[in-house]
């Protein structure tokens, strides 16, 4: 039973209309760009996407947005995307804005088999509407917390730097971000990697995502790795 799929089309073969999908990445950093492009080509519709951001107008999840493939977006920050704002304000797309830490922790909760977690983020704000608020004394301080539920995603699609045929993944620098917590959380987890290697080539002490979480893995055909804000200093 090999986890290797021969290409991105095979990896997303059963991602159908109406699926709930987690996408790793922060901004355009560490996004599964090959898989996103394939989902655009496949034309699946009515997707619920869980991702910290929504890409930019012509890259990342912005490509799915342009084709109106996203029914609902669950994200923490969507500021860099004019088409997103248009679809949201016009009501064409449903949007659930979630604090970034809550987003990450709801992924983690799913990956750790915890149905719900408590966080102080959003207490007293509109994020708390309709949610259970509970007081806990933690480290000697009494404080209110929101109960937030683990995400329930059909697929997690992540991008790693290196992966082996057992599904073990290693991320590079801040391209790690949401990828490990989402990889743990998907019912089916698809990993696209820059370098697919043989078992034994990755140091067991340095694996970020143990292979048990990864169901399908492939080496991406091409990684553009676009930079959103190129900031440099002179030599």
């Amino acid at each position, binding site marked *: 039973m090999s986890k290797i799929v021969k290409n991105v089309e095979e990896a997303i073969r059963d991602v159908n209309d109406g699926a709930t999908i987690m996408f790793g990445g922060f*901004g355009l950093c560490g996004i599964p760009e090959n898989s996103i492009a394939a989902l655009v080509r496949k034309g699946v519709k009515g997707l619920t996407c869980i991702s910290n951001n929504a890409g930019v107008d012509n890259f990342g999840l912005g490509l799915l947005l342009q084709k109106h493939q996203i029914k609902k977006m669950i994200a923490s920050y969507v500021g860099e995307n004019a088409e997103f704002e248009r679809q949201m304000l016009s009501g064409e797309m449903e949007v659930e*804005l979630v604090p970034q830490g809550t987003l990450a922790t709801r992924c983690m909760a799913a990956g750790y088999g915890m149905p719900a977690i408590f966080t102080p983020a959003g207490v007293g*704000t509109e*994020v708390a509407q309709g949610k259970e608020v509970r007081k806990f004394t933690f480290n000697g301080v009494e404080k209110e917390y929101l109960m937030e539920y683990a995400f329930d995603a059909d697929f997690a699609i992540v991008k790693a730097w290196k992966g082996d045929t057992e599904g073990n993944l290693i991320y*590079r620098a*801040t391209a790690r971000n949401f990828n490990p917590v989402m990889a743990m959380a998907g019912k089916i987890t698809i990993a696209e990697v820059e370098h697919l290697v043989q078992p034994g080539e990755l140091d067991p002490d340095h694996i970020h995502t143990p292979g048990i979480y990864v169901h399908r893995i492939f080496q991406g055909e091409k990684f553009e790795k676009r930079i*959103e804000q*190129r900031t440099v200093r002179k030599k």
Partner: protein
Amino acid sequence: MLDKNGIAKRIAREVKDGMYVNLGIGIPTLVANYIPEGIHVTLQSENGILGMGPFPFEGEEDADFINAGKQTVTLLPGSSIFDSATSFGMIRAQKVDLTILGAMEVSEQGDIASWKIPGKMVKGMGGAMDLVASAKNIIVAMQHVNKAGESKLLSKCTLPLTGVKCIKRIVTEMAVLDVTPQGFKLLELAPGVSVEQVKNATAGRLIAEGNIPEMKID
């Protein structure tokens, strides 16, 4: 009146040796440029860095190395990388000593609004709600009044909140103020700014007792 860099310079004086500090987008980011020599500070970027360094040299930028503002950055020796759940775990667990962020409004109770203007702009809260709900020490860096000339220091916030009763200190182009049970307490004035000017620019209760010293910046 201070410019943005002046505000950042003043806030940099709040940073102490050994601190772990999270800097928000905008003016807070500038604070990194003014941290005094000889003070060892570790910058946290909530996308998963401890030990964030300066922007890369031209031609050395790398798409895999960005900060929470999506800008290309570098790592300093002794840095570490971690996932988003760990990042906000350390924020919730109050391991980050100081958080500096911007705001649209702050109330005299310490409430903050910073992420949404109904019907107009909804960028999302990003990590701000997590940061303000958890940080033990938060400084807001902002202009005292908005572009329409209205005070951003209010008795009550009018915009959707980011967090309640969480802001301790505010540094604006005019003044340093603490949030106290009695209202905004004026601690320091920017060079050339009078108590009267701050009063006029502050819609919430302002407490200005005794002789208010001028800010020390350099």
